[in-house]
């Protein structure tokens, strides 16, 4: 007699489906980044994804475990890393970053589900620590289809809006971007390949919320806290909300299941703390951005949050 434990039916949504839906949700922002900054961005993303997948495959072979590249998690890590590169980095930069993300941040911690820190962000943090100049050189968007778009020369170096605001002040920023909010919303500014179009990131994020892939509490708590914090400190909340990597981070990185809390209340705490850290870093620390470090720092607190924030027992 068979002894199979119930239930005998299962939902169709499996790990691979979830991962590929996240990848799909990122594609509009990725294509916009290529449109905005040139063909070179496409190759950066390609190298980043390929190295991530190949690293995963090699490690699967070395560990003599099931090949996991089809589950989409390595490709997603590669894509996220590619999207937070400056459009003019040399190709070995995303390659090294993806290797670090998959080999060290993911597999050295035990593989899928066991890493404490978001692999893509660890890859990026490593690159910034090792090659800060390369990682912090920015360019302005180039006209689609122009020689500069095709061959990536003649690009005008230009700081990101957050960088201009921080170093040169708000007046210079408005001088350069008279319609700063709409420029940021539609992505017509300097920045990383994937972060510039707040609009398309929002579309992707909302798609993931509607399909119940991500918990809305994290982006809402995170973005809401940044907006409230900027407002409370007398800054332009809309600018701090749309500029930099906040949407990319809040919708696609802080929501990473593996590195965010298990409970809904825990996620609120996580998201609000990410927001507080981001606003503090942006306004009071030496660097213009703060999303990456905020999420990485909060990743470290996830085990603690999960230890103490638990659902109230039924019937009590």
């Amino acid at each position: 007699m068979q002894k199979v434990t119930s239930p005998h039916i299962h939902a169709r949504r499996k790990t691979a489906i979830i991962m590929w839906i996240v990848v799909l949700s990122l594609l509009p922002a990725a294509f916009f980044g290529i449109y905005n900054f040139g063909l070179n961005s496409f190759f950066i993303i390609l190298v980043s994804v390929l190295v991530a997948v190949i690293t995963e495959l090699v490690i699967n072979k070395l560990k003599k475990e099931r090949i996991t590249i089809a589950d989409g998690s390595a490709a997603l890590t590669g894509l996220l890393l590619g999207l937070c590169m400056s459009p003019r980095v040399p190709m070995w930069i995303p390659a090294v970053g993806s290797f670090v993300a998959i080999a060290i941040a993911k597999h050295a911690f035990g593989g899928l589900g066991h890493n404490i820190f978001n692999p893509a962000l660890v890859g990026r943090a490593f690159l910034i620590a090792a090659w800060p100049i390369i990682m912090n050189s920015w360019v302005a968007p180039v006209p689609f289809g122009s020689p500069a778009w095709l061959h990536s020369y003649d690009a005008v170096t230009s700081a990101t809006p957050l960088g201009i605001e921080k170093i040169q002040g708000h007046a210079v920023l408005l001088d350069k971007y008279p319609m700063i909010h709409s420029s940021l919303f539609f992505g017509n500014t300097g920045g990383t390949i994937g972060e510039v179009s707040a609009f398309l990131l929002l579309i992707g994020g909302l798609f993931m919320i509607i399909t119940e892939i991500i918990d809305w509490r994290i982006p809402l708590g995170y973005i809401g806290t940044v907006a409230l914090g900027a407002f409370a400190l007398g800054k332009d909340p809309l600018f701090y909300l749309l500029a930099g990597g906040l949407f990319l981070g809040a919708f696609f990185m802080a929501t990473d299941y593996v590195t965010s809390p298990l409970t809904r209340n825990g996620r609120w705490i996580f998201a609000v703390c990410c927001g507080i850290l981001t606003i503090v870093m942006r306004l009071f620390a030496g660097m213009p951005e703060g999303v990456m470090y905020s999420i990485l720092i909060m990743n470290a607190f996830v085990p603690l949050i999960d230890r103490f924030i638990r659902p109230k027992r039924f019937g009590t």
Partner: protein
Amino acid sequence: MSGFRGGIHPDGKKELAANKEIQTAEMPKKVTILLKQHAGCVAKPTVNIGDHVKTGQLIATVDGLGANIHSSITGRVAEIKEIETNVCGNVPAITIEHHGGDEWQLLEEKQPLEMIKDAGIVGMGGAMFPTHVKLCIPEGKKVDTLLVNGAECEPYLTCDYRLMLEKPKEIMEGIRIVKGILGVKKTMIAIEDNKKDVAEGFKDVEVKILKTKYPQGAEKTLIKAALRREVPPERLPFDAGVVVCNVGTIYAIQQAVKEKKPSVERIVTVSGAVNEPKNLLVRIGTPVKDIIRQCGGYKGKSARILNGGPMMGICIDEDDVVLKGSSGITVMNDKMVEEIEEQPCIRCAECINVCPMKLMPKLFADYSRAKKYSELKSLNIVDCFECGACTYVCPANIPLVEYIKEGKKRCKK
């Protein structure tokens, strides 16, 4: 807003049998009646091999917690021996061979509660808890509501639906009997909104229509959804002032008290991979293969036969028999059974989101694997009633219910 937290929406598949009127199954040639098909202790036989028994004749009784067992057919006691089952464990069973017609021995006229006890009625929803015990309110507890469970949230099953549709008068009579025993004024029938049409038959009682969601029909979730009350941990519905009875049980009570019939038959939904899904009135102890044959046989290559529905049903064999708590026999063929391979947990927390008891199944699996059984206790593993919602949603195919069952066993030690 009524409802309970968590839960899932599996494909109901009720359409397979929902429109099939209740039919009386063929008289079985042989029945095998388990001496423990109730919570409590094994019943002791009061008949010997070779004895002639009538339908409804008492054949085994219990001393402690339990329920009487009656012969479900007229015939001769052929065998008394221990058998192996997945549902009730290894238990003795009495095999009776059909002989002659269908001669009934009815119950003696007594007080209703006495008659329910004599009739050997147990919870027909599947829990098989002795009903006469359930209806005895302990000293000091105050019960104000009788909640009739017509939720039938398990996919495929339609026996309660058909019963409510076809026998509303009998159910109302049963409700009046139970209200009298409990001395309560308030009664509510709780159903899901996929069977709204039964409400028409119940004019004199409040019918609460709940949004279809699994596991609505579990006692604690039903009380929460229908009455906004929570039963405290490790307590019974009494502690929330409620007694919950399945509609099938209410019908059995009516049959016992009004018709003097002991619990020897029940309605079983036979569905899934059979050629003609049906709702059959079946004698207790009828072999499953007899019933499947009456439903046109297997459709495709049978891979699993379940006592119950696909969410909480237990795998049985076609030689196993119908029990008092068998609300359904669900057949799954090889196309319906998924080959699933356990993958690493990605911490999506869906198991936590769907848990109606607000538990953290993911951690049960982790601590069970790590053999940290004291942690399981502090995470209230006892609250889990194994509805399987967590396992159903898990994208990594982790058999959470299996880990939980194992963990519970270890916690007891």
